[in-house]
């Protein structure tokens, strides 16, 4: 496998980075990077870590990183995660409380510990922490429950002071959304599977309205909504498909993610598993309670419409 870290890869401009990943020969991983500058979203680092984790450290080749900003990869724990040496001497530039380094979460207990002990290290206000722990909890639980990923979820986050936003990346190398959704619904493509997974009330565990006693199929819809109402980026990459919620467009909530202002692609290299990246603007975070009102409205309407669509029509002869 080959992965190249460009000078810039955030959710808004991540597509070329994804297109250039080479997944051939999964016994080896070659990491190269822009020689002058590397500035990447945590989701990119989570992806590199997830790809490299099963590879023997001796089979991971990391080209000498010359970019001035390469120490960031070291601070985020990438080389420690991969079991390789970077040759970079870290200068302590980043003050504490700006990032959550790459962390592997394999089960419910580790997730609870992460939420209780690690997220507070970001030193944010309670109203800012609510959406972050919500997003992390729901996404990582999806991985634990549905992905069957041997490496669990690989999580990392970064706070950007200038834009006052937090960027979160949660990645797994499990079944992927299509296989999970296909257990209950027909999705012929990875993109269609992502679309279904984002619609409230649709879960791979059952076709029954209301879900099972354990799953409702609402988690991803909630997270997309948090991003949408705050005009933040949100992306899901699974199989060969990418869905990206764009920052622009109205705040009106839609049950169908394709009705939101978005970009999509279904011709990317095949990612076995699921990659989720989300940005949360902390200065513009809409009150969580307002957001819940919106969700309640849309959720109810969606279920009513879905029930109505199943009504049998009377035959008039």
């Amino acid at each position: 496998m080959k992965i190249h870290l460009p000078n810039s890869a955030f959710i808004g401009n991540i597509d070329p980075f994804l297109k250039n990943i080479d997944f051939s020969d999964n016994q080896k991983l070659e990491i190269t990077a822009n020689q002058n500058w590397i500035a990447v979203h945590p989701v990119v680092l989570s992806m590199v870590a997830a790809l490299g984790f099963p590879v023997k450290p001796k089979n991971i080749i990391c080209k000498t990183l010359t970019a001035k900003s390469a120490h960031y990869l070291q601070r985020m724990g990438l080389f420690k995660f991969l079991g390789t040496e970077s040759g970079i001497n870290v200068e302590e530039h980043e003050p504490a409380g700006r990032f959550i380094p790459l962390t592997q979460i394999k089960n419910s207990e580790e997730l609870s510990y992460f939420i209780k002990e690690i997220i507070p290290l970001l030193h944010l206000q309670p109203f800012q922490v609510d959406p972050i722990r919500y997003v992390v909890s729901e996404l990582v639980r999806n991985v634990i429950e549905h992905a069957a990923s041997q490496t669990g979820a690989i999580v990392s986050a970064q706070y950007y002071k200038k834009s006052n936003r937090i960027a979160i990346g949660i990645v797994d190398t499990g079944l992927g959304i299509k296989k999970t959704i296909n257990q209950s619904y027909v999705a012929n493509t990875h993109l269609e599977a992502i679309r279904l997974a984002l619609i409230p009330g649709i879960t791979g565990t059952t076709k029954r309205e209301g879900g099972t006693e354990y799953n409702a199929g609402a988690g991803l819809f909630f997270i997309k909504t948090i991003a949408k109402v705050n005009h933040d980026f949100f992306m899901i990459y699974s199989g060969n498909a990418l869905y990206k919620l764009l920052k622009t467009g109205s705040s009106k909530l839609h049950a169908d993610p394709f009705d939101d202002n978005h970009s999509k692609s279904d011709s990317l290299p095949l990612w076995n598993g699921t990659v989720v990246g989300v940005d949360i603007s902390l200065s513009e975070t809409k009150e969580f309670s307002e957001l819940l009102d919106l969700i309640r409205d849309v959720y109810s309407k969606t279920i009513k419409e879905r029930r109505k669509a199943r009504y049998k029509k009377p035959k008039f002869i």
Partner: protein
Amino acid sequence: MKIINIFRRVGSFAENKDIARDIRIKEIMPAIESGKNVILDFSNIDAATQSFMHALISDLIRKYGNEILDQINFKSCNENVQKIIMIVTDYMQEGI
């Protein structure tokens, strides 16, 4: 009357679905089936996820119908926790 303190089980952020399911199966359902009313006490809970609340109460509505909501009281919920509960009770009743 059975009173269940949620904070003691999950801390201030109610997100652990495994614990929610345990509370439902081991505490709420036996109480309901023996004819008791249940108070779910959310004192000191700052926030809860929809998944937690779903695992806690959805199957009660599915098994016993929406009349079960006459037997359960949700105590000391903040505004957000109340709204999460309402989302779950709404979609479960609409799905019945």
